[in-house]
């Protein structure tokens, strides 16, 4: 009944103002869970590990393959695939997307490569600090140039 009014009438209000309609309906709730993808057990290729050792990597940590040679025999195919990909700097998220391997797994595999010196990582901005003004200015200029 009242859902019809919402379309052309007053917008629902975020902050509580007595009426609670509009607070509860969440279209996302009706979506089938299948939208989230199948259940997987991706840790076979990491030997059951779910954490990348002591190396802190997040979604946008940028990594690049080091130029030094790593004995190929000691690497898993997934490690080699990562090394191939990150001959140029790439983020953890991009590597995960390109190889179609979940982020958590990529972080573990990258941790292996970093600890061997085969991959170098640059951490993102420290989260506790606001971004530097010069970085913001560069971002602003870069977007304007698009």
């Amino acid at each position, binding site marked *: 009944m009242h859902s019809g009014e919402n379309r052309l009438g007053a917008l629902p209000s975020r902050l509580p103002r007595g009426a609670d309609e509009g607070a509860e309906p969440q279209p996302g709730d009706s979506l089938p869970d299948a939208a989230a993808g199948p259940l997987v057990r991706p840790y076979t290729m990491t030997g059951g590990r779910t954490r990348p050792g002591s190396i802190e990597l997040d*979604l946008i940590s940028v990594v690049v393959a080091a130029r030094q040679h790593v004995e190929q025999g000691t690497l898993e195919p997934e490690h080699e695939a990562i090394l191939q990909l990150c001959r140029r700097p790439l983020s953890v998220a991009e590597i995960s997307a390109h190889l179609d391997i979940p982020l958590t797994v990529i972080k573990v595999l990258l941790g292996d490569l970093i600890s061997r010196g085969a991959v170098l990582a640059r951490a993102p901005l420290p989260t506790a600090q606001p971004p530097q003004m010069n970085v913001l200015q560069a971002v602003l200029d870069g977007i304007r140039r698009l």
Partner: protein
Amino acid sequence: MASVGSEEEAGTEVIPLAVKILIAGGFGAGKTTLVGSVSEITPLSTEEVMTEASLGIDDLNGVEEKTTTTVALDFGRITISDGVVLYLFGTPGQDRFWFMWEELAQGALGAVVLADTRRLETCFHAVDFFERRGVPFVIAVNRFDGAHAYTEHEVREAIGTGPDVPILMADARSRESAKDVLITLVEHVMTHHTPAVTG
């Protein structure tokens, strides 16, 4: 130890600094469309895997049948310069993936909340989240064909944000419009340059 990561190797690699902006909003509000409008790559999709343990149940150590579930994240990339890369991350539209927002928000420059006036309430959670976390954000009202055109004032009233939060009308399909949204956000961040609230 002697050969691993010698300064010669490390010194020759230029690893750019990565920064990110979040694009939030309800399911179907146009997040991936906006990312695609400005990204230099076709938006990519990656998956984060959730184990039961990382949902906060720590007693499962040693239990063999750990179930996991995956959350898809869409993102795009803009190379700012040799030294800086900007990533645009769409937030998961479903509330049950709320946990992902914490990691996404960490270190983010700011956020765009895409509002769909046909179901405005679907962006309220995002506004709540960014307000609480102290993440600077702007609200972009994505114009959908056939949707009633509300004024900025009406949208501001409904969402209940102060005058300091920019609200602008946008078309997520348009590169120029998407650029305007991002420029408004970065300018907003620069003028309200206060330390981000952590934890």
